[in-house]
């Protein structure tokens, strides 16, 4: 849909359907996402919210090029995504640090993969570690870090390579509120500095509203679709803590929450029924 003149969107999903074979390899299969289409413009910050198990991670995997949709396709900056999306950085929901690398080496890995010499990559990784509040923990291996610390290492690891589009799957859910807000502000600063595109999955609707330009609401599975889209017209730059108190914010929250709540209840009832 990108017109000739407009720049290609950072991400575009066109009628993406993802069907998984059934657990035992035979029998009925499970359709997680059904015909999902949405666009993330260059430089836009988009959040996706939806009930658990609705297919948010699945859609991010499609955008990253890790999962081939059964139907439909994904485009990134006008290019169809056929393999790993080279313009994307992906912060996974599950633990994805390399257990055999120290925190510092984990952060430096992306640079090394891009041909930066090891010593230099480590040097450049150090400020990133302190940015996520782990200055003294560079020599720890992942199993020696707490759950929240591992998440922060993963954040630094994703951001250091400066991807054009950042895919984040519940990046801050393991953090306490305070650390979380610091990380959120850190991310917004970064994003503001050179206007990357961000696709941000979260369970925290407040977080979604506070951070984004747009919030997408996913229906409950199976066969989730996008059922709501809200433009967040709050002023930038924002402070995630302060903005939550503004009436504008509260109005938006009420509105989206109304829809989401219904959807979650429906999803819950469905899984109970099936």
């Amino acid at each position, binding site marked *: 849909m990108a017109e000739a003149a407009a720049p290609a969107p950072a991400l575009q999903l066109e009628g993406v359907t993802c069907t998984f074979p059934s657990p035992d390899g035979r029998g009925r299969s499970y359709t997680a996402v059904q015909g999902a289409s949405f666009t993330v413009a260059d430089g836009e910050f988009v959040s996706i919210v939806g009930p658990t198990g609705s297919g948010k991670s699945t859609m991010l995997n499609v955008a990253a090029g890790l999962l081939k949709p059964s139907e439909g396709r994904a485009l990134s900056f006008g290019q169809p995504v056929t393999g790993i999306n080279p313009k994307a950085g*992906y912060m996974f929901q599950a633990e*994805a640090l390399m257990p055999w690398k120290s925190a510092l080496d984990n952060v430096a890995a992306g640079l090394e993969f891009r041909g930066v010499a090891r010593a230099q990559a480590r040097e450049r990784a150090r400020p990133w570690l302190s940015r996520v509040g782990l200055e003294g923990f560079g020599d720890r291996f992942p199993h020696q870090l707490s759950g929240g610390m591992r998440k922060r290492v993963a954040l630094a690891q994703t951001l250091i390579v400066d991807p054009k589009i950042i895919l984040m799957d519940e990046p801050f859910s393991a953090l306490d509120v305070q650390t979380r807000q610091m990380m959120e502000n850190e991310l917004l600063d970064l994003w503001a500095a050179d206007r990357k595109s961000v696709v941000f999955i979260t369970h925290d609707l407040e977080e979604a509203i506070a951070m984004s330009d747009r919030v997408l609401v996913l229906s409950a599975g199976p066969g989730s679709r996008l059922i709501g889209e809200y433009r967040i017209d709050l002023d930038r730059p924002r402070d995630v803590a302060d903005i939550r108190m503004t009436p504008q914010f509260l109005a938006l929250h009420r509105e989206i929450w109304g829809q989401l709540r219904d959807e979650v209840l429906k999803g819950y009832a469905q899984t109970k029924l099936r």
Partner: protein
Amino acid sequence: MRSHAKRLPSRPVILLLQLGVLIAFFLIWHVLTDTKILSPFFFGTPGAVLERTWKDFASGVIWYHLGITLLETALAFAIGTVAGIAFGFWFARAPLVSIVFDPYIKAVNALPRVVLAPIFALWLGLGIWSKVALGVTLVFFIVFFNVYQGVKEVSPVVLANARMLGANSRHLFRHVYLPSALSWVFSSLHTAVGFAMVGAVVGEYLGSAAGLGYRIHQAEGVFDTVGVFSGMLVLTIFVVLIDAAVTVIEKRLLHWRPQDQHSGQH
């Protein structure tokens, strides 16, 4: 997790225990052969075996043979390991190659090496290389199958993460597959060390001019059981030493793992 486990005894105590096992073994051997429950014709006597071993070392005749055997072992081990790792990775990363060649790899693994010895002798002569080849055919497969499996066991999320971070095949090998497969590699190396030695000795046994296998064969030819066992004793001592070296390297390369996570019993 460090837990309430009974802690292991300290290093010297363990050494003492190990020594105890050794002494017990020799004692049992002694008693059994002394009372003729085990025929000394087949089993020698521990006293005689130790004396012979001591003499061989003292007079120095053994060093030359030992040196040759160790050289063959080391070469077989090194070549077999490198080839096993290389092919293991290649096969794991090239599914079509792996699926097509799979039955043949298994078939070759099942060939009795003893029968192959003349062919090795023909191609490589009676020098050390035919023995090295025999050892390699043993070591290679053990390492190969483990590396192959080790690569397949890599955590899919960690792998996806590295790829998203921009790792190419070479990076994946170096930063993901290799470290992840290392515990498999080392598990196989512990068996492989032994088999490298077996390959060398059997090769010498089947035809050679020197080496421990040659000496064992010679002793067997004149029904010198003590000589046979003395040869085996020397052999095992050195294989244990080589294996200890492997373990040291293993500890160093796998130092990132949680320590004593498995002593956790109550």
